[in-house]
């Protein structure tokens, strides 16, 4: 189901049940009237049959639905207010208030709710157990989970720039909360409210079923209580027992559908995606060329959607053995998409619409999934942008390095694997003792070195490096670049080096391709680009960076 279909189904179903509870009681007569026609099946005068004492089940059902909805609403409102106070206010105030509120919420969260409600209901004499008492108890035991979610969200909102700006400019606290923070929390509040309503209706039904519900109201739970005590199921009077539970289930289901839609608004990643097509929809015949290890010919990549984005347009590149090819361009120019497409790592909605990628005689775009898997990392490895997140945070470095060997060199003994991992770490200047470390225990530069070591494991012919040093400080960046050059000279692999930093490429690369809006606008040796840039965009790029050597200033 699409999001709008889910939302519509949920809203219609919930709306019908609310109408049933609101208007139904006006149309169905007195639910308490006792007749001497007990347990007649549905039909005729009694659309849903009668109870054991001859009461009309439909009339009971409408009144009970109203009762349950009312309690759900009461508890929903109260619990949402409580969670707002403890979650939002606490997180916004910060400091001791936050500590205390959050401790309180967490304690309330781990104390099991229904047993507490049962004990409280057990102490209150039946004649004093009204709708409000029950609702209050349910609200008090049901707000804590929502408060925790709201607190986390408020904490992150609190640190956003516009909220900080409002606070610095001296706006009153309640105004900042109401104007800057609450509107952003609305989807979460809505989903927590919906959740609280469902939970309240379920809990109330459970309490009433146990005979501990509100004495002054009839709900779906009390109906089930009487049905159970009248042995409805044993007498096969399903029309008495099934409908109340079904209404609860349908209402809960409807609200769940609404919540799915709210979740998808909060977290766009959850939205339904188009059915997967192949990642390559068409290719053009392979073009071989001499001593090249990697040839990209007329490659086109399109992000399919309502308005398709043509991210890579007719790109042709040739990478010779042992060469460093620089790929330059501003962010969003398609250079990362190109890099991913070469290894077919691009994900839907991105598709290769035409062109060819040939790797040392292998037609990459024609590989089946298993062949592609065997090709990756063995022939071509990658070092991604932002080493911070490229390593799995929950396993040690060792496991992530050994994974590669286990998969691609299954016959290797475990001591050989260990030796190889230590060897590549030494190659990039990381102490092999670090194999047992987790990524968060390493510095940014060290993590990037580990990624490069990982890329070296299988001695691939080509390494694609996507902004490998962007997030690092200048000194570390310099060290790593020197390392890459040294390793390339030693091990003779070719590199595709992607960055927005053209001056850096001038120093590092043999040849450079300048990309703009998905097209390669200039493709020449580093020397040519430096001395005789042809395209105006290249000249602008060169001018906009202060040169590493200081010869070319920003004011050129």
């Amino acid at each position: 189901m699409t999001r709008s279909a889910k939302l519509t189904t949920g809203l219609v179903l919930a709306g019908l049940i609310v109408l049933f509870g609101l208007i139904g009681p006006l149309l169905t007569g007195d639910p308490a009237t006792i007749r001497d026609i007990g347990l007649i099946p549905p039909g005729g005068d009694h659309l849903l049959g009668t109870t054991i004492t001859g009461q009309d089940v439909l009339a009971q059902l409408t009144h009970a639905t109203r009762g349950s909805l009312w309690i759900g609403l009461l508890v929903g409102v109260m619990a949402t207010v409580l969670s707002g106070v403890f979650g939002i206010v606490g997180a916004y105030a910060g400091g001791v208030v936050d500590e205390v509120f959050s401790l309180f919420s967490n304690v309330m969260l781990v104390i099991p709710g229904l047993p507490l409600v049962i004990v409280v209901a057990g102490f209150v004499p039946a004649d004093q157990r009204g709708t409000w008492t029950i609702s209050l108890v349910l609200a008090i035991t049901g707000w804590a989970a929502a408060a925790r979610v709201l607190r986390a969200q408020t904490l992150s909102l609190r640190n956003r720039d516009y909220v900080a700006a409002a606070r610095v400019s001296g706006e009153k606290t309640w105004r900042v909360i109401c104007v800057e923070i609450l509107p952003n929390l609305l989807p979460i509040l809505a989903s927590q409210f919906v959740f609280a309503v469902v939970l309240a209706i379920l809990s109330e039904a459970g309490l009433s079923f146990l005979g501990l519900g509100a004495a002054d109201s009839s709900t779906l739970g009390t109906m089930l209580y009487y049905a159970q005590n009248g042995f409805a199921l044993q007498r096969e009077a399903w029309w008495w027992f099934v409908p109340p539970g079904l209404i609860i289930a349908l209402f809960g289901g409807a609200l769940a559908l609404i919540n799915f839609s709210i979740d998808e608004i909060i977290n766009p990643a959850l939205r339904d995606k188009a059915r997967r097509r192949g990642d390559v929809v068409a290719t053009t015949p392979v073009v071989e060329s001499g001593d090249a290890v990697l040839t990209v010919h007329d490659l086109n990549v399109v992000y399919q959607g309502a308005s398709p984005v043509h991210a890579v347009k007719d790109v042709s590149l040739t990478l010779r053995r042992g060469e460093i090819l620089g790929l330059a361009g501003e962010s969003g120019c398609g250079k990362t998409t190109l890099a991913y497409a070469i290894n077919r790592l691009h994900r839907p909605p991105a598709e290769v619409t035409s062109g060819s990628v040939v790797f040392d005689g292998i037609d990459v775009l024609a590989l089946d999934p298993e062949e592609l898997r065997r090709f990756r990392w063995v022939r071509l490895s990658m070092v991604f942008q932002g080493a911070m997140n490229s390593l799995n945070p929950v396993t040690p470095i060792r496991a992530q390095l050994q994974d590669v060997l286990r998969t691609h060199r299954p016959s290797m003994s475990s001591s050989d694997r260990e030796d190889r991992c230590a060897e590549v770490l030494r190659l990039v200047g990381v102490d092999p003792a670090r194999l047992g470390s987790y990524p968060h225990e390493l510095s940014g530069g060290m993590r990037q070195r580990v990624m490069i070591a990982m890329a070296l494991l299988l001695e691939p012919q080509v390494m694609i490096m996507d902004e490998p040093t962007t997030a690092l400080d200048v000194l570390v960046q310099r060290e790593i670049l020197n390392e890459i050059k040294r390793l390339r000279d030693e091990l003779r692999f070719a590199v595709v080096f992607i960055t927005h930093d053209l001056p850096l490429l001038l120093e590092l690369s043999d040849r450079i391709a300048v990309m703009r809006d998905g097209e390669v606008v200039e493709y020449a040796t580093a020397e040519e680009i430096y001395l005789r840039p042809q395209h105006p965009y290249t000249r602008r790029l060169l001018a906009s960076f202060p040169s590493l050597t200081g010869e070319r200033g920003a004011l050129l």
Partner: protein
Amino acid sequence: MGYHLRKIAFYLAALWAAVTLNFVIPRLLPGNPVDILMAKLQQRGGSVDPAARQAYETLLGTGGRESFVREYFAYLGNLARGDLGVSVSAFPAKVSDVIGDSLPWTVVLVGLATLISFVLGVGLGALVGWKRGTWLDSLVPATTMLSAVPYFWLALILVALLSSGLGWFPLNGGYDVVLDPGWSPEFLGSALYHGTLPALTIVLSSVGGWLLGMRNMMVSAMSEDYVLTARAKGLTGSRVMVRYAARNAVLPSVAGFAISLGFVVSGSIVTEQVFSYPGIGSKLLQAVQNNDYALMQGIFLVITIAVLGANLLVDLLYGLIDARTRDRSTVS
């Protein structure tokens, strides 16, 4: 403070809160529980000597004759000795003995059902998230619908269909009453047979929550860079799914165990009632129906301690599966 110390301190605070709540509730609510209890006791032929009355007053309040603080410490003292009072409904058994007899039934039933439900929900959730855009997507609304069904209603329908209708399972009880409770294979087999349907009810009603949570986290994890790296490494699909995506996506489900366990325990109390299961949930209701306040309080306390203990255990295990928490200094 270290991760473990902080966790233990938190659960001690929660335990203190629960104990105090247990003390305060009967004193704040209307009604005079001690008088009701004494009347009940008399009906059952119990001795109504001042000592019995005093014991109940320590538990439930003296109506203002003693100071709150003295009552509180007397109550804490009794708890520390494991003295929870005498049950009226099972007179003259001690509350601690009644609980001791019924607790194992619930721990095994709810424990096993929760474990099965967690493993099933997390496993399916990981698969549904991984295979997004296939028919598996329909599992999400289907299981969520099941979570919206009241436990007891589902239980009764299952009993009507599978026990009364088809005769596959016994109608109620925890074991065949002709057998002597013990470790004999017949008795264990019978207990297993009787426990299947209650456990099935709990699993069906709670699996949806785990599945949805895991599926959503899986979807988020799949867009993380480390999953992209894993794919680029040419690892097999199942390895990427399990070791990279699911391994990370499962963390919030484990961390959120506290919330879910509360729901499961609440639901299973009602389920026990439906099946007349000899566990602590049935005993709690029996206590409520008989105004057996001492038993009621004792059971609430034991349920709370069990839930807190389970959570503490999960939290300590969490430190093992996510190394980052051990090094973090703030309470989350």
